[in-house]
């Protein structure tokens, strides 16, 4: 079977009102063969901070960072301000990153699903940017920090009320993020 995106169709012509008259046919083929290719992709899934490793965590490991420091902060609805609880987490992150200066990080910004897709991409970027600025102000060199927004596309909590939405409005600090 051929994969055509513009299937060949001969355009119409009017049939004579008197059915006995055979209409002149004007046929025209619209070409349009298309071979879909599956293009190469980089997998590059950043993951969400590896919450699985709650057991023994070597100091300086990513488990240590996730479990003992805290890899994520949360935001109020439509807000990008760093709350007091988030400031404590980011202060710990900055201290930890100062102790282990070989790590580069990616800050992922996320939004909850109660917004439109495009706006949430920008909102997630704003949250990641605000987080980066805070960390930079606490001494993490800005060139060690990359940001990315996933908008509302990667929720971690799934339900239809505030208990989940508030967990999804987050910025997650990922050690050795993609591209670093």
């Amino acid at each position: 079977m051929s994969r055509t995106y513009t299937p060949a169709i001969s355009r119409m012509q009017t049939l004579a009102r008197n059915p006995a008259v055979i209409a002149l046919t004007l046929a025209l083929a619209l070409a349009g063969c298309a071979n879909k290719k599956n293009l190469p992709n980089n997998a590059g899934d950043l993951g969400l901070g590896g919450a699985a490793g709650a057991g023994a965590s070597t100091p300086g490991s990513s488990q240590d960072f996730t479990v003992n420091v805290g890899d994520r902060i949360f935001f109020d609805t439509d807000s990008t301000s760093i709350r007091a609880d988030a400031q404590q987490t980011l202060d710990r992150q900055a201290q930890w990153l100062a102790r282990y200066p070989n790590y580069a990080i990616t800050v992922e910004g996320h939004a909850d699903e109660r917004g439109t897709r495009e706006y949430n991409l920008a909102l997630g970027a704003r949250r990641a940017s605000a987080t980066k600025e805070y960390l930079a102000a606490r001494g993490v060199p800005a060139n060690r920090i990359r940001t990315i927004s996933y908008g509302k596309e990667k929720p971690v909590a799934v339900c239809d009320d505030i208990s989940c939405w508030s967990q999804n409005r987050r910025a997650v600090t990922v050690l050795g993020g993609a591209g670093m």
Partner: protein
Amino acid sequence: MMKRIFIRLMIAFAGMAMSFAPAYALVEININRGNVEPLPIAVTDFMSGNELGAQISQVIAADLQRSGLFAPVNKAAFIEKISNPDQQPRFEDWKVINAQALVTGRVTRESDGRLRAEFRLWDTFAGQQMTGQQFFTQPENWRRVAHIIADAIYERVTGEKGYFDTRVVFVSESGPKTARQRQLAIMDQDGFNVRQLTNGKDIVLTPRFSPSRQEVTYMSFEGDQPRVYLLQLETGQREVVGNFPGMTFSPRFSPDGQKVIMSLQQEGNSNIYTMDLRSRTTTRLTSTAAIDTSPSYSPDGSRIVFESDRGGRQQLYVMGADGSGQTRISFGDGSYSTPVWSPRGDLIAFTKQSGGKFSIGVMKPDGSGERILTTGFHNEGPTWAPNGRVLMFFRQNAGAGGPQLYSIDLTGYNEQLVKTPSYGSDPAWSPLLE
């Protein structure tokens, strides 16, 4: 290039030929009235040596029914059995079952293997043929021929262009919410012939059709670098649009197909840029510390509607194509986003968020005449059918599960689920195919 011009001429010819139909026909639908009573129409099985005739009729009847303007009469009520579609039907037999319009037809195989499909549309009360046309195609394109015939019927009866011979590109979603896979997919407007265009490894969002080429612009997270891409549908070839120092997103073509307009994110701000696809020149159109996104051109290309939270919440703004005269147009209760200018130019469709609900609505380009067409837990992302009469959007219900595509006409009374094999979001309607 020559081919395209020739095709245009052919269509113009067909249009002229149809205008010879009698002006005193009784069957017509004025779709400018509010809630239209659908026109009862009998779509008989096309004559054929196999099941194809009945299949084609079924596609035609389904198109007409979903438009909300036609009510196909149940076949079980038919009295006359059409044995020769070239012969005048017994109009009395159709009037008595209140079929005000009647469609007859025939499908045959040409000696070269092509399919020949002919149809006639009859006005049963006036007792005359309204139009009759025939088409030739490869047998595997039979659904498309049925859509073209449905368009011809729609156009003859309503006086407006149809939209059935069109396709929709969308994001096909599968898997749980926390690990959702997203692929670009394309399908006929009735949900058939779905084909995946990307392999699902990367998040892909907001595909939009080119108005002039077999091309789609969309956003992909490939290589963890979220950027706007172009995808040639016929070759599968892809390219990044521009070399911007940050995330580019929310792309859309200009009406002439020569530019892509999109948002560029830099730190906390997003502003609207265009890139000319021939010269590769980029132009910045907005310059605020706000989120400016979802740009959409007016059909004449002179103006752009977009959303911005520069005033606090997201609202709709209109500006000139050069970025001049940025003026807020939405003032209702709540926030407004994803504006899309109608191909007719008369309306702007949007998503409205208010009171914990998400609605799809329309307003005039000056912001007046706001009308909500559908409202609920989450409706988002309208796209216009090329005739500007019908919108498609996606809906996420409360609870587990994923988004699905729906269509709704401008009256708001005719809402239809567009069935897709998996979840679907971000629909974008193609122009009428040529």
